[in-house]
């Protein structure tokens, strides 16, 4: 059996998206051209824009198509190194506030901005991954230009109260961005209700194609492009549009509108089955993330005494795809910054696995996972030093 429990990494194309994109392959015109080929492409791009805007309660002119969620996030944060009076800081508000649990595309951009003179402050989170609103209140002042807080965390699924955060941020006169890559299409997102000024979407997390995303920029908010040199997207993002990707993204969004409402309930049940099954069948585990304010699709579990990559690869041999928070598997040696921020100790963070489900995940697949997982954990624990006498944390030095 082959099962995919890594939907937060990416998702397969929705069959309807695939159909739309295959049909769309015939369309090759440049949306900027004035002839029939160009007009066809333009019409499709604008139709897609309307669909994406509609999905999040925005106006069409507030949607900028971009090359990825990462690009959208980079764009928003980078507004802060532009010294033009059109851009946000207006020299005075030169502090950015973000959180310790953002996606690396936010954290590393923030780090880079810090080297270029922007002050960056990082909000702490509690053991469930929620930011501390009191800390936010204490950091907000006249110097703060932008606050960027992700709506749903990719590793542990914790949801933040963006509406409340945005109100606080606006009262202090700063702008508000949320990276909603993991939230859009999974929980209801309406930019007017949230009140945000910037919001990031990525298509490949919601059964659309990779390499395309959208940035919502509220009308009237100062803006400065990251990619320059073209009039595309009304001068806000240069580069000939990824027409096929945009077409696919719009169809993906359309299908989300239809499927999302009933799906959340179903995934919620599956998550409970999975969590209960793990708790019943495996000792020495702990669940990460918020017990209720969390994505229905995402379950993050720490297993004592086993290292995450070993779990991932043994499961892979059984046809099960999961992900580790500990990044040994992805090339660095650090355990997950998200789990460490929630206070999980380094040892447990090394032994953490993210199970993320999606629209085609079935109860049968969850049961298969529950059959295999206890055996794999037992097998790894049997060869682990963590379970020998005096083994815990021992060194011979």
């Amino acid at each position: 059996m082959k099962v995919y429990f890594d939907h937060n990494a990416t998702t397969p194309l929705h069959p309807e998206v695939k159909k739309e994109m295959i049909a769309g392959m015939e369309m090759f015109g440049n949306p900027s051209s004035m002839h029939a080929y160009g007009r066809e492409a333009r019409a499709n791009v604008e139709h897609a824009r309307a669909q994406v805007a509609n999905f999040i309660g925005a106006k069409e002119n507030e949607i900028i198509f971009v090359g990825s969620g990462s690009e959208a996030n980079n764009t928003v944060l980078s507004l802060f190194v532009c010294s033009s009076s059109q851009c946000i800081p207006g020299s005075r508000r030169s502090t950015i506030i973000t959180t310790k649990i953002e996606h690396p595309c936010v954290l590393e951009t923030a780090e880079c901005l810090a080297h270029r003179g922007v002050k960056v402050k990082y909000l702490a989170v509690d053991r469930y991954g929620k930011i501390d609103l009191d800390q936010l209140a204490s950091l907000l002042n006249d110097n703060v230009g932008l606050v960027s807080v992700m709506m749903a965390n990719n590793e542990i699924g914790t949801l933040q109260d963006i509406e409340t955060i945005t109100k606080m941020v606006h009262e202090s006169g700063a702008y508000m961005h949320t990276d909603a890559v993991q939230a859009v299409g999974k929980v209801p997102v309406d930019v007017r209700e949230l009140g945000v000024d910037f919001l990031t979407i990525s298509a490949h997390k919601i059964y659309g194609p990779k390499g395309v995303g959208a940035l919502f920029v509220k009308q009237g908010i100062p803006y400065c492009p990251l990619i320059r040199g073209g009039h595309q997207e009304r001068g806000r993002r240069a580069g000939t549009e990824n027409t096929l990707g945009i077409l696919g993204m719009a169809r993906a969004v359309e299908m989300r509108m239809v499927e999302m409402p009933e799906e959340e309930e179903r995934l919620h049940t599956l998550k409970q089955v999975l969590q209960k099954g793990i708790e019943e069948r495996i000792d020495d585990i702990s669940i990460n993330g918020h017990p209720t304010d969390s994505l229905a699709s995402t379950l993050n579990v720490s297993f004592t005494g086993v290292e995450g990559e070993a779990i991932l690869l043994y499961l892979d041999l059984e046809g099960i795809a999961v992900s580790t928070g500990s990044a040994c598997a992805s090339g660095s040696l650090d355990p997950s910054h998200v789990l460490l921020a929630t206070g999980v100790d380094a040892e447990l963070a090394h032994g953490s696995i993210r199970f993320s489900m999606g629209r085609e995940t079935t109860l049968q697949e969850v049961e298969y996972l529950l059959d295999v997982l206890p055996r794999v954990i037992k097998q790894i624990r049997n060869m682990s030093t963590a379970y020998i006498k005096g083994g815990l944390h021992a060194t011979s030095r």
Partner: protein
Amino acid sequence: MLQAGEWAYSETLKEHFMNPKNILQGENTDDFDGVGMEGNLQCGDQMMVVIKVDKAKDTITDCQWKTYGCASAIASTSVLSEMVKGRTLDAAFHISPKEVAQELGGLPDHKIHCSVLGDKALRAAINNYYTRNGQEDKVKQELVKVVCQCMNITDHDIEDAVLEGARTYFELQERTKCGTVCGQCKEETEVLLEKFKHIHFGA
């Protein structure tokens, strides 16, 4: 289009990962003549190696292990346990991480650190055997010492960083990433920092 399937690792490594050899069953090590343990769970890697020794010939007759770590860590301890059987203590003592990696059919660069603990644990087991058998004179110290297990930073790395300009713990961290994970190495690192500053700059 290419098909999936190919691992980031060699076939040999995959084989050792799928069917690890010589895992120590249970927790009893009383039957063994030498026990060595290196690393710690906080850093994501810990290995224990136990050996049986033919005392007349000074050769290793059995080698078993436990490992907490990633696929490379598991496979490298497994392959090491096969390599040392029948070797003299002296020959086994000099097995390098490079030989282990070669035996595994190569390791990706960022995984080398995962394999270095196995041979260290083996040396600790051999030293432990010498100590137990009244041969303290044969105990050999490690030439380099890993200070930060998480990032695999040695005393030499710290000395280099000091020579390259690091003067504070923070600067040292920026250069080496030492102490950036579990933080338990901070005290030892700070002592070394002061020592090397003193040796090289009289500070």
